[in-house]
Each structure stands twice: as structure tokens, then as C-alpha cells.
């Protein structure tokens, strides 16, 4: 788009517009109504429905406003008799094949066609044509139904599939009157629901909820998605205290109306029959429902007993990064003030900490100011760590794709497997996890050689000479050999970075969750600093996308053994999650309070089992009787995200609100109230009034939240973002020596998706049932290697690591590094955590989810 402004007149009003805007865009910006059907603001206009025709003085034929760009001085009329006739005819032609289905149609009441027909007052149409009836069919995904007869051929679904998600699962099939939307590649469909949400009529409908309700029977409640850290804004459609659908507003949040599979279809767990709604105490191996007072006073008494007998260090707490900021803040207050220990952790910290430490080392800052919007302004994008598509960070991946086709950005992907982004990448480095640092140093080596080509002067930055020295040995030849690619590829990637005006980095776990994990991120951040991706102004940027909705909030609220709220260092270091179970096994920790976490599924299993077995007292707070909760002594039922008021902090630092959409089952209370009551039974007062009041407390305790509001009028981010980011920048020191692979374990395994999939449930307890229905977890391995052990696609294999084994189906792929394995989890498998070892990265206190030594056997 140009910066030039032009002046145009629409319906007698003189307006200013940017050159390059379409007439429709200008009209909409200025509140002038032009009917449309095939236009969608997120998609390229195709001008097919002809409802948006306008007359331009001097042009003899009417033009479609959605495709015509403004020109200086044009005079446009949007409502004339002639236009009305054209629109009326266009609409009648659309209605030729349209069934009189409204009473039975899901869209009725929110249907764009229905609204237009009403607006134009059509009660009959005189044209005739026959088209073969299509009835109702399953669409590219079983989660969506297609009603071909209701389709108006606006092609919005196909364009969303091709432009936003770029899966090419659907396309136009047939010609002329018989043309319809067909499924051309069902395997490519990722059930993202993008097509469903752009369809203006009832031709595509969801099939998660059996119950349906018209808009006048239901309410929409704006809230924040509780699955991943992108924090998409969504609206729950609530009918009789039941969520029956999810939509997303176009103008809020990082998602701009898009949602992923989990956000749009993953809500049925809210009404799961196995949900537990009463507190329980276990006696003689049997759960018994008890009144709240009894459960809470028993908990308090047991914790008190341990504190009296063994000191506060014998108590530990784990809180889920899907709890609200308010709950996490109160929980850490409970652990620190009431119990008196720093033994508190969250799996959110396990995902954020490596990144935080790397950024801390380089910028002296704890977080970065970038938003996902900044990605689109990047012209060379480096993606490292997890496969954003496989891990369901689709919204972030779609941003990158948008940058690719809208601005022609270059894409460099570092991942052992050729995922969807790698397929579209200019340079795909099939490197072993843990070799990111080597790659980064190789790039730095070439960038420094070509000093002239790129922008900011970096010689003055502390550590520059050391970096130069360190990068010396990473010549293209050395890097190519280490990574196992050609030297040309290394040079080409460096060339893209050198030519880039505004590079951007998008990283995600399991990057950093392996041996020397922090170093990998530090090395990438060094490169980002050198090539100018780290800016004060918020362009390009260095992004960290995580799997849990409140990953950032969990750490910022102080659910970390070393950090108090607002990243203030704790006076004494507590135990991290894994260490707590180690200590429990040694009988140093006697009581654990676990809120929403399921460590048996996400932390090294043998260690957790040993720890849990040795505990004197375990209290679990959850919606379901999870694997871990089953071994607890006291179970406290928890609220779902739809029943909670509170805030989440997403990966960009947006502080976003959760609104209570459902009335919780009788007696259930939010976490804050539970912690306060346990505290009062323990003899300490924690005054908890409401989430809003707790948020006020957070604002006072955490300087980064000063100025934010519980109920803001506009989207808000916690402050401290932006400003002089680079003032104290220094290049970090990176260790690159690699631990030798273990004998007999020829592969490096990375476990992806473990933190997001345990929420969907596992084979024995499917929580989000429809997601579980389409979820496919598999082991990706090189096709040749698979052939060597005699397995084909879909066959079951046994993965063996020094710590345990599990069985899973295999998916052979040509585009997979030979010595690597990727365990891609969409539905959790209770055995995955058996594969993990107890070693922690000494800096981040994170166990290894990447670079696990492994071998594969045929079952």
C-alpha cells in the first residue's frame, strides 16, 4: 500500500483515502454501507457476487467496489436505481439454486444471504435452473458438515484455505452451474475451521455440539482461549448454561477472527460426564465425597502437620499455566506467605524459562516487546524449535505464511522434519535439535564477513569481539558438515539474512528444552541482535510462542522457584518441579499441592511415580480425576475457563480477560477462594474478595502490570514493553560442545506437543472428545530408517530411551533427518513421559524434551 493519499467523493461526501485502497474499504472505513457477499476483509477480493457494484462518474459500466482501487478525484455513487436493479438481479441469480432451508439451517439468523434477501425484500424469484442436489456431506474434516445446496459459491472457504492456512484441502470442482466446493485433498485438512468461520451462509456447519440455538436464544460471551499462549480472543455461544459453539470477533486479539482446531472445536470437555463436581477424600483406597469444609480443613491440617514436623521446605506446590493470573498470584502468596516456602513451579515456566534466560543475558531484560503483528513486517523470517503447525500454533504459522505471500518475505526453517512451513521455506535446515547454536554461529560468521551489506552498527555492542572470535571457526564448510547440509544452503540463508531489512525470529519449545538448551536460544538471539531483528520500534522481532495459555503469566505472577511476581529474584531458591519429585523420593518433600497440573503425563514419569508414592500428603485440584489426581489424598474440583473471571497474559504480553460464561456447578469455587480458605484453616488470613480485587493487588505487587486494568476498554499489554530495548544489549557467550550420543541409541528424539495435548486428554480419558476423534499422534522418522527396521506407515513401533519405552504408530517421511525422531502428540499418551530422563538443565532447571537419546524397534 502506498503512503500517498487521494481524495474521492462517495455519495456526495468528500473523503480521504490511501492510494491502493479499494472503494469498498474506503466506504466501510467511513461507515458507508455497500452490500457484499463474496468479500471478506481477510481475503483477497474476487469480485464474483456483484452485489457491491457502484457507479463511478465517467465510467459507463458499474464497477465492483471490492476490487476497484480508488483514484484521485473519482466520484462514486453507491445507491442508485440502476444499482438496485443490478443487485436485485444478482441476488436472484444466487437464489436460483438455493433451497428454502432456513428453518432447518444452522445459519438462520446470522446468515448474510438471508439478511440480503430481507434487505432487498425478495419474496420470489423468476429464474429457473436445475442443479443436482447435494444434500449433507462430511467436509474435509469430520468436524464440519457441508450442505452443498446452500452454498452461494462465494469461494470464501476456498480462499481462506488457500490464502490463510494454505493447506489446499478444498477447491472448486466442476464447471458452470454444476461447479461446487469439493474436497480435493482431505489428508491435507488440519481441521482448523477457517473455512467454516468465513462461510457467509449455512453451507458449512460445525458438528461438535448436538444442541443448536438461534442467536435470539443464546448469548455470546467474549473470553480468552485457554489452550495455547497466543491467547486468541473468542466468543462462547451459551445456551441454557451450555456452550454450544465458538466464534471469534474480527477486531480483537492477535487472532483477528481466526481460531485453530482447539479454540473452535475443543470446548466439549466443558460438559464432560466425567467431570468431578464435589470435593473428595480418599480413605482406604476409595474416594469419598465430602463437604467442602471437611476437604479444606483436612488439607489445612495435613499441610500444617508437615510444616510443624518437617518445616515449610517439606511442602511443594505446582500450578498449571492455564490458571488465571489471579489464581497463580494467590497460590504463590499461599505457598510463600502461608506455608513459607519457595517450592513452587509450573510447567509454564519449563517452556518460558530457557527463552527468558537467554534474553536476560543478552538484553538484561526479562521479556520482549514484540507482537505477532510485527511478523508481517519482517522480510526474512527464521523459524526455530517446534513445528508451529504440528504443535497447533497455527495462528502464528499463518502469520508467517501471510508475510510470505503478501510481502514476499524469505523463510528459513530449522527443524529435523520437513513440516508444512519447511515445505514453503526458502531454506530448510534439517538439523538435529541442539545444533541451532552451530547454525547461528555459522550465520554470524558469514554476516560478519559481509559487513557492508547490512544496517546497524554493532561493533560497539559489548561482547562483539568475543562473538567474532567465537564465530571464526564456524565457516560454511564446518557448519555444513556439522548440520549435514550443503555449503550453498548455508550461504544462501546467510544471503537472505544479509539482504533482509527487517528480519524476524519465531521460536518455540522444545527449543531450549534439552541439554545446553539456553545456549541454543542465546545463539539465535545473538544472531538476531547482529542482523537487526531486535528493534526498539517493534518490527520483525524475536518471538517466543508457547503451548500454554498463561505460560507468561505463570512466571510473571511468581510461579517459579527463583522468581517472585514481576521477575524479582526470590531471596532463597526453592525447588523446581522435577526437583520436588526428586526430593519427595528422598522424603524431603512430604506434601504437595498440585493445581491443574498432571506431572505424571508431562514430567519424567518414573521420577514422578517414585516421588508421588513417597508423599505423605497430596492434594490435587482439577476438573477431572487426572492420572496424578487419582493418586491424591484429597481432590478439590476446579472451575473450567468458561466459569472463571480473571486474566491471562499471552505470549505477546497482552493482558486479556476471561469472562464467566457459565454458572459453575453447585458449590464450586474459584482457586483464589480455595487457597484463602485453606489458609484460614491453617490460621493465616488471606483476604480474597474477587478476581478484580486480586488484580488490583497484582498491579501493586508487579511493576510490569502498573497501568493495566482488569476490565480495559481497549486491548492492553502489560507495560515495560518497548522503549530502549538495546541500551544494555550485549552478545551472550554460547557453548557449542555437544554431548556425545549415548551408545546403542542412534536417534535424537524430540517430544512435541506434550504440554498442549494433555489437556485434550489421553486414550483412557478423552476430555475434548471431538478433538480426540481427529487427533493423530505419531512418531515421525526417516522413511529409509523405517524401512530398515521393517516398518511401514501406520505400523506400531516401540521407542526406547535409557529411561523407558512406549509404543506408537510411525509415520515415515522422506523429509526427515535420518538420526532424528519427532514424537508429535495431538492426543496425549500416558507413556510419553516414561521416555524422559531426570536430568535438568542446570541453568533453567528444565528437563529434556528435545534431544533425548532413543532407539526404535518394530513391535
Amino acid at each position, binding site marked *: 500500500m502506498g503512503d500517498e493519499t487521494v481524495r474521492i467523493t462517495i455519495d456526495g461526501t468528500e473523503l480521504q483515502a490511501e492510494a491502493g485502497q479499494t472503494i469498498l474499504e474506503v466506504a466501510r472505513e467511513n461507515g458507508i454501507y455497500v452490500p457484499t457477499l463474496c468479500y471478506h476483509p481477510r481475503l483477497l477480493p474476487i469480485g464474483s457476487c456483484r452485489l457491491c457494484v457502484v457507479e463511478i462518474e465517467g465510467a459507463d459500466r458499474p464497477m465492483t467496489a471490492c476490487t476497484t482501487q480508488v483514484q484521485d478525484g473519482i466520484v462514486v455513487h453507491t445507491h442508485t436505481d440502476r444499482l438496485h436493479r443490478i443487485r436485485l438481479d444478482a441476488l436472484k441469480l444466487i437464489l436460483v439454486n438455493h433451497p428454502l432451508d*432456513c428453518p432447518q439451517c444452522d445459519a438462520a439468523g446470522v446468515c448474510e444471504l438471508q439478511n440480503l434477501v430481507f434487505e432487498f425484500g425478495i419474496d420470489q424469484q423468476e429464474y429457473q435452473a436445475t442443479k443436482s442436489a447435494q444434500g449433507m456431506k462430511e467436509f474435509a474434516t469430520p468436524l464440519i458438515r457441508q450442505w452443498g445446496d446452500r452454498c452461494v459459491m462465494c469461494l470464501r472457504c476456498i480462499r481462506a484455505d488457500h490464502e490463510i492456512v494454505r493447506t489446499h484441502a478444498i477447491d472448486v470442482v466442476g464447471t458452470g452451474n454444476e461447479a461446487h466446493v469439493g474436497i480435493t485433498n482431505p489428508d491435507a485438512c488440519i481441521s482448523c475451521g477457517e473455512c467454516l468461520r468465513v462461510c457467509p451462509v449455512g453451507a458449512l456447519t460445525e458438528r461438535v455440539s*448436538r*444442541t443448536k440455538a*438461534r442467536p435470539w*436464544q443464546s448469548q455470546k460471551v467474549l473470553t480468552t482461549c485457554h489452550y495455547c499462549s497466543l491467547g486468541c480472543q473468542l466468543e462462547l455461544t451459551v*445456551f*441454557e448454561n451450555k456452550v454450544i459453539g465458538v466464534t471469534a470477533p474480527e477486531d480483537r486479539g492477535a487472532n483477528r477472527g481466526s481460531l485453530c482446531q482447539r479454540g473452535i472445536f475443543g470446548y466439549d470437555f466443558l460438559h464432560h460426564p466425567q467431570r468431578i463436581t464435589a470435593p473428595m477424600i480418599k480413605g482406604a483406597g476409595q474416594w469419598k465425597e465430602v463437604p467442602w469444609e471437611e476437604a479444606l480443613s483436612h488439607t489445612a491440617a495435613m499441610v500444617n502437620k508437615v510444616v510443624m514436623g518437617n518445616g515449610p521446605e517439606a511442602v511443594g506446590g505446582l500450578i498449571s499455566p492455564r490458571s488465571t493470573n489471579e489464581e497463580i498470584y494467590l497460590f504463590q502468596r499461599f505457598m510463600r506467605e502461608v506455608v513459607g516456602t519457595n517450592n513452587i513451579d509450573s510447567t509454564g515456566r519449563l517452556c518460558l524459562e530457557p527463552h527468558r534466560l537467554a534474553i536476560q543475558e543478552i538484553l538484561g531484560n526479562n521479556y520482549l516487546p514484540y507482537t505477532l503483528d510485527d511478523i508481517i513486517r519482517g522480510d526474512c523470517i527464521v523459524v526455530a524449535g517446534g513445528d508451529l503447525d504440528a504443535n497447533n500454533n497455527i495462528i502464528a504459522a499463518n502469520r508467517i505464511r501471510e508475510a510470505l505471500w503478501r510481502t514476499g518475505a524469505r523463510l528459513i526453517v530449522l527443524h529435523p522434519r520437513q513440516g508444512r512451513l519447511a515445505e514453503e521455506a526458502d531454506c530448510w535446515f534439517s538439523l538435529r535439535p541442539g545444533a541451532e547454536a552451530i547454525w547461528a554461529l555459522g550465520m554470524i560468521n558469514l554476516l560478519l564477513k559481509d559487513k557492508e551489506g547490512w544496517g546497524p552498527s554493532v561493533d560497539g555492542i559489548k561482547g562483539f569481539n568475543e562473538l567474532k572470535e567465537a564465530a571464526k571457526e564456524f565457516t560454511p564448510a564446518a557448519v555444513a558438515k556439522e548440520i549435514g547440509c550443503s555449503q550453498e544452503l548455508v550461504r544462501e540463508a546467510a544471503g537472505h539474512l544479509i539482504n533482509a531489512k527487517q528480519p524476524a525470529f519465531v521460536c518455540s519449545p522444545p527449543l531450549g528444552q534439552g541439554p545446553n538448551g539456553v545456549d541454543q536460544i542465546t545463539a539465535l538471539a545473538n544472531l538476531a541482535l547482529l542482523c537487526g531483528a531486535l528493534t526498539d520500534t517493534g518490527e520483525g522481532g524475536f518471538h517466543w510462542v508457547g503451548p500454554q495459555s498463561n505460560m507468561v503469566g505463570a512466571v510473571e505472577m511468581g510461579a517459579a522457584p527463583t522468581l517472585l511476581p514481576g521477575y524479582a529474584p526470590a531471596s532463597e531458591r526453592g525447588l523446581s518441579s522435577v526437583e520436588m519429585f526428586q526430593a519427595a523420593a528422598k522424603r524431603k518433600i512430604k506434601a504437595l499441592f498440585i493445581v491443574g497440573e498432571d506431572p505424571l503425563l508431562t514430567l519424567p514419569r518414573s521420577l514422578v511415580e517414585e516421588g508421588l508414592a513417597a508423599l505423605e500428603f497430596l492434594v490435587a485440584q482439577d476438573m477431572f480425576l487426572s492420572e496424578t489426581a487419582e493418586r491424591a489424598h484429597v481432590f478439590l474440583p476446579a472451575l473450567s475457563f468458561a466459569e472463571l473471571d480473571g486474566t491471562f497474559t499471552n505470549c505477546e504480553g497482552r493482558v486479556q480477560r476471561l469472562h464467566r460464561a457459565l454458572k459453575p456447578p453447585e458449590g464450586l469455587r474459584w482457586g483464589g477462594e480455595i487457597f484463602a480458605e485453606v489458609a484460614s484453616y491453617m490460621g493465616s488470613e488471606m483476604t480474597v474478595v474477587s478476581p478484580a480485587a486480586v488484580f488490583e493487588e497484582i498491579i501493586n505487587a508487579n511493576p510490569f502490570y502498573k497501568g493495566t486494568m482488569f476490565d480495559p476498554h481497549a486491548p492492553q499489554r502489560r507495560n515495560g514493553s518497548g522503549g530502549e530495548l538495546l541500551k544494555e544489549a550485549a552478545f551472550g557467550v554460547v557453548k557449542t560442545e555437544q554431548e556425545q550420543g549415548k551408545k546403542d541409541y542412534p536417534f535424537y528424539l524430540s517430544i512435541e506437543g506434550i504440554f498442549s495435548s494433555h489437556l485434550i486428554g489421553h486414550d483412557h480419558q478423552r476430555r475434548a472428545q471431538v478433538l480426540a476423534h481427529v487427533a493423530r499422534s505419531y512418531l515421525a522418522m526417516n522413511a529409509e530408517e523405517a524401512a530398515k527396521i521393517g516398518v511401514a506407515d501406520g505400523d506400531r513401533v516401540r521407542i526406547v530411551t535409557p529411561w523407558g519405552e512406549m509404543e506408537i504408530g510411525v509415520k515415515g517421511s522422506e523429509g526427515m533427518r535420518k538420526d532424528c525422531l519427532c514424537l508429535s502428540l495431538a492426543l496425549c499418551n500416558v507413556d510419553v513421559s516414561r521416555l524422559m530422563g531426570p536430568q535438568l538443565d542446570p541453568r533453567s532447571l528444565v528437563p529434556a524434551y528435545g534431544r533425548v537419546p532413543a532407539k526404535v524397534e518394530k513391535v
Partner: protein
Amino acid sequence: MVISLLTGIWWFIRGIGLLVASVFALLKGLRLTFTKFFSRPVTIQYPEKKREVSPRWRGIHYFERDCVACGLCVAICPSQCIRLVAVEQDDGERYPETYEINTVRCIYCGMCAEACPVNAIKLGRNYEFVDYQREALVLDKERLLANAPEEV
């Protein structure tokens, strides 16, 4: 003496006049009573005998045919007394899992019948609908189907 006699006569005549006037008034008042007394009565011996209502009478609702759960009656109902839980079957067909009309709140306006695109809900000619509990006055799907008049 003469004066007192004359006064007596005057009173006598006045008394007669008043008597005639009040008897006349009484008879006038009884005229309606007498005419009605000898005509046929308008009341009927309910419940032995029942009143015929006009064909356009709006009485208790019934389902004439299957409701497709479109929700239009819910939208139009001015007293908001219709509760509909629409459910989509596996074949995509919609049907009302729950359909209730709270006749205590209903004002018998007949708008629901007018809005129904498939002529499912109708207001019948039955007006006999009493119970000791309000709950019993909520019509559900089964009762609405059972309410359908025989001749239909």
C-alpha cells in the same frame, strides 16, 4: 278545624300519589326481570353442557405435525413462554429435544402459530385447562402432540 281537615286530605292524596308512583317504579324495574324470567336462559349447564366456540378461537396449543426446531415461535412469542432445545441428529436433521410452552404466561395471542414455517404449532379450540400446580400447566412435546384434536 277546617284547615286541619284540608291538610289531612292533602296528605292523603299525596300519600296515594306516592304509592302509585313507587309501585310504578317497582314494576318498571321488574320489567326486565319478568321478561327474562319467562324467556330461555343464556347460561349453560357447564360442565354437563359445553359451549361451542368460534372457529377462530385460540385455545390450548397442540402440534399438528413435526416441529423442525427452527426457533421462530421462540423469537416471536411476546410473553417469552416457549422453551426450545433444538438438536441436530447425525443425519443433519433438526428436531426439538425439548419443547415447552408455559401456558401460565401465555397470552394466547397465536403469534407462534402464525410464525411457524411448517404449521407445526397450532392453537386449538380447547379451553379447559386447569390444575392445582403451576408446573402441570407447562405443556411439553408429548402433551402437545396428544392435544391434537381428533378430526385432524
